[in-house]
């Protein structure tokens, strides 16, 4: 275990203490750490991680359809990176319809969120311009959903 990983462990411990109700689980697999959050705590946790833990770079933001029958059906996944500490962290928020936008924290989230909205139909509350980005504006449906028909009927 190197210095960066140790630092990350400490930071995660602090995160848990700071938001005892917000953090659902912390798991490390294949060398990648995933923190699952309650969606109400998304924005404060992101602000905290950016300011206190140095995770200043949003490498990726995407959505998952967990299956038609899944409890909360969707998950939004954030891949954060720290330019100084050179470490990565994955945040995961489960939702059935909407989560808050993180554009006030990372401006780069704008198009990422529009893409997730377009392809999966997850709404980002308070997003400055939540419109379709790939599909035409009059398109019906969200292609990356698991129940989207693959063939024309």
């Amino acid at each position, binding site marked *: 275990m190197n210095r960066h990983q140790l630092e990350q462990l400490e930071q995660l411990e602090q995160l848990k203490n700071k938001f005892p109700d917000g953090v659902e689980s912390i798991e490390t697999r294949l060398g990648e750490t995933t923190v699952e959050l309650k969606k109400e705590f998304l924005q404060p946790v992101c602000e905290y991680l950016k300011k206190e833990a140095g995770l200043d770079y949003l490498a990726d933001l995407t959505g998952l359809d967990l299956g038609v029958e899944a409890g909360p059906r969707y998950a939004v996944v954030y891949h954060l990176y720290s330019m100084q500490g050179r470490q990565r962290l994955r945040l995961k928020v489960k939702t059935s319809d909407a989560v808050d936008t993180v554009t006030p924290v990372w401006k*780069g989230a704008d198009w990422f969120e529009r893409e997730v909205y377009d392809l999966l139909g997850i709404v980002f509350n308070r997003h400055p311009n939540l419109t379709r980005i*790939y599909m035409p504006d009059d398109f019906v449906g969200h*292609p990356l959903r698991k129940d989207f028909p693959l063939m024309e009927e």
Partner: protein
Amino acid sequence: MSELEVELAIRRKEENREEETETGEEIMVLNMGPQHPSTHGVLRIILKLEGELIIDAVPVIGYLHRGIEKLMESKSYHQVIVLTDRFDYLSPLVNNLSYCLAVEKLLGLEIPPRGQYLRVILAELTRLESHLMWLGSQANDIGAITPLLYTFREREGLLDLFEMAGGSRMHTSYIRIGGLLRDVPQEFIPKVKSFCEAFPRLMKDYEGLLTKNRIWQMRTRGVGVISAEEAINLSLSGPMLRGSGVKHDLRKASPYSGYDQFEFDIPVEKEGDVYARYLVRLEEMRQSINILRQAVEKLPSGPINAGVPQVVPPEKQRVGSDIESLIHQFHIMVEGFKVPAGEVYSSVESPRGELGYYICSDGSGKPYRIKVRTPSFVNLQTLAPMIKGRLIADIMAIIGSIDIILGDVDK
């Protein structure tokens, strides 16, 4: 200004009720693209102009959206490789590499040293090829046609190398899960060596034409400036980030495929303008030659593929001669292989920036979800802030310096 507002503005213009600014200047809405030659593909930009000055700009993308991520969900892990070529069609080998590294991480595969070195050689040749294409087209956009003729001459030599190794010039699919399609032919390495010998001299030609050229400097210096904080905040990567003074390169920050065994510098420029990005990319080409020389020198012998028969198909010669290999090949190509359940994010430094693959596996033979973090898509977000307040002619210089590939933007 949202897309809808712009559409409304266009409609108002058609009804001859034009807006006016405080100074009494007419505001004009101009539609640039989706076929304008300097947009490098099908990119549309809706511009709000006051004379030649850009007041607002809204890029509209999606004209090349092919739904590859959705398509990937119904293919086996092996078949997905072919689709990865189609994102950034100027650097297919880096796309292959990034995807294969992600799947290999899920599978826990270890690639033998020769395979890793060859991957590095191919990735760096790709970087050169892509940067050459960028240099030619960027100069061409601004009005200097000569560099394009030079860079295409060298690029042709590189494409010949790819053809020699993988059998295909552009959509190579040469890097496979567990290693490579096959070992490179004997004459490949000497050809790479002679390319490395000749290239620095050729680069002087481009630099002589551009670097100190007064017109080039006037068109690029102070144009499209992005500060370091803004670059990080906007998730920029690659030469866009390094041109703004952030020393970040995934080859150094989180080395993959044995990049930690090579010595090279990360070029950084502080100005954050088009000229800074030009200098960064030129220096990157020199560093690529540096890496190539070391890799060719130290290239170990031995196997190129991981010794995992469940994943790696047998050698092609053996498939034609013994029945077991034929069955083995048939099994992998038709049925595929299962990948343990889990999720993984793996990224490499592509010529354009951070190219990441986020793969979710449910334990079956097909990926549950693949998300590709394409650098062009993220970098293009800066177009609007960069061209606001500039003249129309600067758009060509700025788009060229972002170095977008529309296949990479639209997925």
